[in-house]
């Protein structure tokens, strides 16, 4: 008698946590301009002595050829040609683009000008924009040409460029970059070159470990449109990095111990926000990857606060407040923050209330502008102990007075993925600290707390039930997971991912006869769904329908020909039916793909013993 092992719970292919990652963008205008510093300023302001140091430090990085800004600011005549414009945009703080108000917790790479600098610029222009003495001019700024961090270890270029039309509204486009690696690599830095920087407002990289976005392309490499996209992930592997580009971004090198994991078959998806220029533009981004031989020892996680369900903003309402708050179940260090709303967002704030009762502002943007959205990294990680309440407070303006209002006249606006819908999201990159590794991955506690919070907040939230189920399943609490998956499927009866997950959980819990129907439902929605095909094979095999199982495994192999698990299980099903030569061939093929495939190894030995005995 052969000892055959078919896939068990842990072999089931389940999309773990469904993560909706967003992408967005925008502009600002506060008219401030306090007349301070006038007394301390030199009587005659000159470019060479007083203005050049400000321009070289805070403007030239983007205002030079090949960069994002529309004209250069590298010398006196450049500045003179835009002098009054520079006064206007610095007074309004539209330039340099930096949205957050000054606060106690400092951000890295802050681009804010001091009031005294803004006043100096104004004085310079009022006095006739004088050049000044050549001896006063500081040396011109030096910039690294090409890749900022040197030649990357791997450069990925978009397969098909996008031609941006000369006019029309802003465009959101996603480029998919398959990563040609044969084994897992660790990435310590990513440099995004978004194509022609003048027309790319921002770009965000999403890590798609399951190839779930490829199906949205009309042809491989074609890319696809859309502002907000959803990524499915196989296992508990929450996103941990904010890979973001905006004009002026300096590539970020991960701190010691941190790195982004890339596996064979991973796609990087670049979500871009593009703005027409007046003429057709060809956009072909590329991504440079810098590897490190050291695997990550510290794994941060992205926490998302959100409350899109509360976004039902009446037409004309000027101050529509949305809040969310989440209490941290463990100690963390906050590394970066990324607020996101669309065109109605106006005043955006995030706070942390520590267990002792003190409240810190994590970020405050009084004039939100999607065009200049950004990831803000803290200069020093912010300690947030267990029990800290993190809250968001976003105010939306759906009145006629909001010039960015997508509707004219204003109309009711709900939460949603289109740029004319609204969003209320806040991402926090946190690193769990002070945890006991024996208690398992601390991120699980965060994810579960977050999933429970989401379900409580919104019982009709499909993703919340789904994510909670995935967490429970990851902790082997299968019955509880099944209940949550059922709630998710009830909310979206045709969702392939949820049906597959529920079916797989039922098979794992020893109810294959109940699982089959959900797996078939998943395949009805998405016939090319490899995971559901594979799981259906397992469900049939668990009911001793080996012929049916073999058929499903064969179909699965058509979808992913190099999957060792499928080969091993197909071999096992054939062996069960007494088809030993066929079984042997598939076990061998499984081991060819993955020499450590346990089922194939074990079964092949048993099979050879059995065949030898004949």
């Amino acid at each position, binding site marked *: 008698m052969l000892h055959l092992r078919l896939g068990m719970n842990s072999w089931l292919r389940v999309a773990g946590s469904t993560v909706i990652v967003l992408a967005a963008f925008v502009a600002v205008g506060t008219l401030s301009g306090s007349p301070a510093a006038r007394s301390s300023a030199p009587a005659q302001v000159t470019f060479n002595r007083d203005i050049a140091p400000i321009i070289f430090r805070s403007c030239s990085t983007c205002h030079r050829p090949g960069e994002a800004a529309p004209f250069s600011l590298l010398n006196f005549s450049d500045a003179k040609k835009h*002098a*009054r414009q520079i006064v206007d945009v610095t007074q309004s703080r539209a330039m340099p683009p930096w949205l957050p108000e000054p606060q106690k917790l400092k951000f890295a790479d802050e681009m804010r000008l001091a009031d005294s600098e803004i006043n100096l610029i104004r004085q310079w222009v009022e006095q006739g924009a004088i050049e000044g003495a050549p001896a006063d001019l500081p040396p011109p700024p030096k910039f690294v040409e090409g890749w900022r961090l040197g030649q990357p270890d791997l450069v990925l270029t978009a397969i098909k460029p996008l031609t941006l039309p*000369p006019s029309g509204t802003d465009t959101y486009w996603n480029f998919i970059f398959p990563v040609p690696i044969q084994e897992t690599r660790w990435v310590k830095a990513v440099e995004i070159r978004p194509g022609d920087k003048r027309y790319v407002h921002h770009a965000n990289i999403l890590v798609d470990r399951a190839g779930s976005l490829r199906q949205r392309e009309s042809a491989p490499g074609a890319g696809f449109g859309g502002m907000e996209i959803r990524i499915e992930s196989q296992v508990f592997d929450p996103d941990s990095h904010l890979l973001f580009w905006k004009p002026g971004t300096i590539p970020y090198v991960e701190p010691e111990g941190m790195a982004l994991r890339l596996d064979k078959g991973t796609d990087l998806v670049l979500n871009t926000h593009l703005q027409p220029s*007046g003429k057709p533009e060809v956009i072909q981004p590329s991504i440079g990857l810098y590897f490190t031989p050291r695997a990550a020892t510290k794994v941060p996680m992205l926490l998302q606060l959100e409350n899109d369900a509360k976004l039902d903003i009446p037409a004309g309402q000027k101050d529509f407040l949305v809040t969310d708050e989440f209490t941290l179940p463990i100690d963390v260090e906050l590394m970066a923050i990324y607020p996101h709303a669309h065109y109605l967002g106006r005043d955006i704030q995030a706070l942390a209330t520590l267990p002792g009762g003190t409240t810190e502002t994590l970020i405050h943007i009084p004039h939100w502008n999607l065009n200049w959205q950004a990831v803000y990294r803290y200069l020093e990680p912010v300690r947030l102990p267990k029990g800290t309440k993190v809250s968001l407070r976003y105010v939306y303006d759906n009145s006629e007075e909001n010039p960015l209002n997508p509707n004219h006249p204003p109309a009711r606006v709900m939460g949603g993925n289109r740029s004319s819908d609204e969003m209320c999201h806040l991402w926090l990159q946190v690193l769990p600290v002070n945890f006991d590794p024996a208690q398992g991955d601390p991120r699980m506690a965060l994810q579960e707390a977050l999933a429970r919070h989401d379900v409580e907040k919104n019982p009709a939230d499909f993703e919340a039930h789904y994510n909670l189920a995935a967490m429970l399943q990851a902790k082997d609490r299968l019955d509880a997971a099944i209940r949550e998956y059922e709630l998710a499927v009830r909310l979206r009866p045709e969702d392939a991912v949820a049906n597959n997950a529920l079916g797989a959980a039922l098979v794992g819990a020893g109810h294959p006869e109940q699982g089959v129907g959900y797996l078939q439902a998943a395949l009805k929605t998405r016939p090319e769904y490899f995971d559901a095909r594979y799981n259906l094979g397992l469900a049939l095999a668990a009911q001793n329908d080996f012929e049916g199982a073999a058929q499903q495994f064969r179909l699965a192999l058509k979808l992913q020909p190099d999957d060792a698990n499928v080969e091993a299980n197909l071999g096992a099903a054939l062996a069960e039916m007494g088809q030993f030569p066929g079984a042997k061939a598939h076990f061998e093929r499984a081991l060819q793909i993955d020499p450590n495939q346990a089922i194939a190894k074990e079964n092949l030995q048993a099979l050879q013993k059995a065949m030898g005995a004949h």
Partner: protein
Amino acid sequence: MGLGRLCFLNRPMFVAAAVFCAALAQAQTALDLEGRAVSPLAADSSKVVVLVFLRRDCPVSSRYAPEIQQISKQYADRAAFWLVYPDKTETPQAIRKYLQDYGYRLPALRDPDHVLVKLGRAQITPEVAVFDRDRRLVYDGRIDDWYVDLSRARPAPTTHELEDAIRAASSGKPVAKSEVRGVGCYISDLE
């Protein structure tokens, strides 16, 4: 208007300077891309005249290209459009390339002395000046309200000052708004 301009021939390259000065003296008006003096207001008195002030290095100016082209086409029977480049350092070659890149099919003028700028009371690029059939300035300012400020543009304009002015001026009616300043780049920065 019409101030006399002194021409100092104090350059070592006397001949070249003389030619340059002659062109200026002759100009007192805008130049086409061949360097010939052109008076856009003298042309075809059956139509209103629209001067569109642009800078190549002004992104707001550039983003308006499809809109300007479209409006000029729509009102071709009633309005004669001229693109005006007030930057004196701008070369005809660079302007030609720009017109081609942005798909313009409109005559372009250089206005190095800001004769048309003064005539059309332009302050910003892009702005327009609309002259009626009697060549009175009836509107100067923005094309529409697409831009709110340099960092914010509406999804679509909600007012259309240029089109309103063309329609009124070409049918002999008074123009409702005679002046609304634009958003973009200062022409005075070019002086």
